[in-house]
């Protein structure tokens, strides 16, 4: 484990460095408080630190205060080293954000024991962060497909439509529905159906750019938000998505299954006063039109220019 030693006294620094290297730590040693802060703030910096109380520029307690003020940093376990033996000093050090203190000259066994305590705390913190991230992921992602769940994709849609209105940036709302998915479930069972949904989600993610969004809207329906998508390129983008899905059969435990999707699109940079529900209703109508047109095709809710309209008509593939 990486550990930081900050001490302006070379003798003390060297003594600690050797002691900790012998114990198996990966030691980073610096001579002042500012260098200590820089090391700790590094993304790969140490999370365990031994700080001398008296240092030039920033002293130990000041380093603790600065580090505790960085809310985006992971937890850093900081031990103050001091030959100040007064209770008031200890209280001041702990009040500044130190986790522990050790008096000089340190006893090697005591130092090791206190560092082990620090490691335990850091390990526990790591597990808590992991659990929090896991919960956050579960709360925002669909458990089967691992793409955004309905709540999140709807929030994102609201946010992006607002931004589009505010900044007149064109976006496209793309609603995709798997064709004849009920047949897959009825013929091969729900487990195979789940395999298909997972693979389709993966393909949808592959078919969009990093700043577009893909979410599971419902059963076999997926909502895609194409950001900064001008009218002239929307039809092509929607068609790419359709092609990406149907380009090859989905490999399942029941064998390869050819899967296609129908797509409804609403694209503009002028959303008027329509609510999200109204916009989705329009996209849903376009999707319905794609289904009615024989499936495996793209239909637009409101062709915004002649190019889109022409392409929309041209790509009605059955």
């Amino acid at each position, binding site marked *: 484990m990486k550990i930081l030693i900050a001490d302006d*006294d070379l*003798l*003390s620094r*060297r*003594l600690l460095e050797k*002691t900790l290297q012998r114990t198996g730590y990966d030691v980073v040693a610096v001579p002042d408080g500012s260098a200590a802060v820089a090391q700790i703030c590094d993304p790969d910096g140490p999370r365990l630190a031994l700080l001398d109380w008296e240092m030039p520029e920033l002293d130990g307690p000041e380093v603790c205060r600065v580090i505790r003020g960085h809310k985006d940093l992971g937890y850093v376990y900081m031990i103050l080293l001091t030959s100040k033996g007064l209770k008031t000093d200890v209280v001041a050090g702990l009040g500044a954000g130190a986790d522990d203190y050790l008096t*000089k*000259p340190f006893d090697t066994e005591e130092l090791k024991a206190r560092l082990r305590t620090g490691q335990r705390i850091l390990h526990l913190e790591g597990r808590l962060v992991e659990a929090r991230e896991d919960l956050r992921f579960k709360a925002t992602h669909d458990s089967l497909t691992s793409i955004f769940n309905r709540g999140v994709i709807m929030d994102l849609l609201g946010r992006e439509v607002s931004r589009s209105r505010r900044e007149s940036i064109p976006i496209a709302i793309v609603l995709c529905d798997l064709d004849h998915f009920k047949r897959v479930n009825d013929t091969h069972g729900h487990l195979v159906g789940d395999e298909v949904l997972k693979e389709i989600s993966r393909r949808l993610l592959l078919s969009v750019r990093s700043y577009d969004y893909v979410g599971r809207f419902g059963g076999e329906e997926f909502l895609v938000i194409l950001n900064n998508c001008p009218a002239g390129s929307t039809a092509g983008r929607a068609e790419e998505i359709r092609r990406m899905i149907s380009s090859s059969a989905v490999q399942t435990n029941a064998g390869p299954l050819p899967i296609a999707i129908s797509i409804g699109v609403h694209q503009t940079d002028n959303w008027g006063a329509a609510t999200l529900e109204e916009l989705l209703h329009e996209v849903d109508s376009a999707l319905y039109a794609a289904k009615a047109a024989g499936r495996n095709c793209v239909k637009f809710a409101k062709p915004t220019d002649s190019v889109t309209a022409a392409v929309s008509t041209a790509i009605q593939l059955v």
Partner: protein
Amino acid sequence: MNVATSSILNLEELLSRVDDDRELVVELFFIFRSGCLGNFQRLREAIRREDGKQAERECHTFKGILLNLSAPRAAAAARDLENLARQRQFGSMRTGLAELESEVRLLLVQIEERADEFRK
């Protein structure tokens, strides 16, 4: 601490703190010897300018070094000097500084002897 009866250099304690790493002890002696002059110069200058805060800091640093080196008598002299600096008793500090210098001189002699022993 009874300055008169405690040892100048508690080598046994120092060796136990470094897991009997004699090479490291020699290195620490060298670091101490090299930095000693600078420590005294900064301390003398702070006392001359009657800069209590700086003097207190220098004494504190010196005390830490001496404690790390297991030099109890010199460390006690540095601690006494730190207390005087805290009270801004600059007159008494000059006497205290002379005591510290004397203790460090004794310590340096012992360090030299021990370093020679370890090198053999």
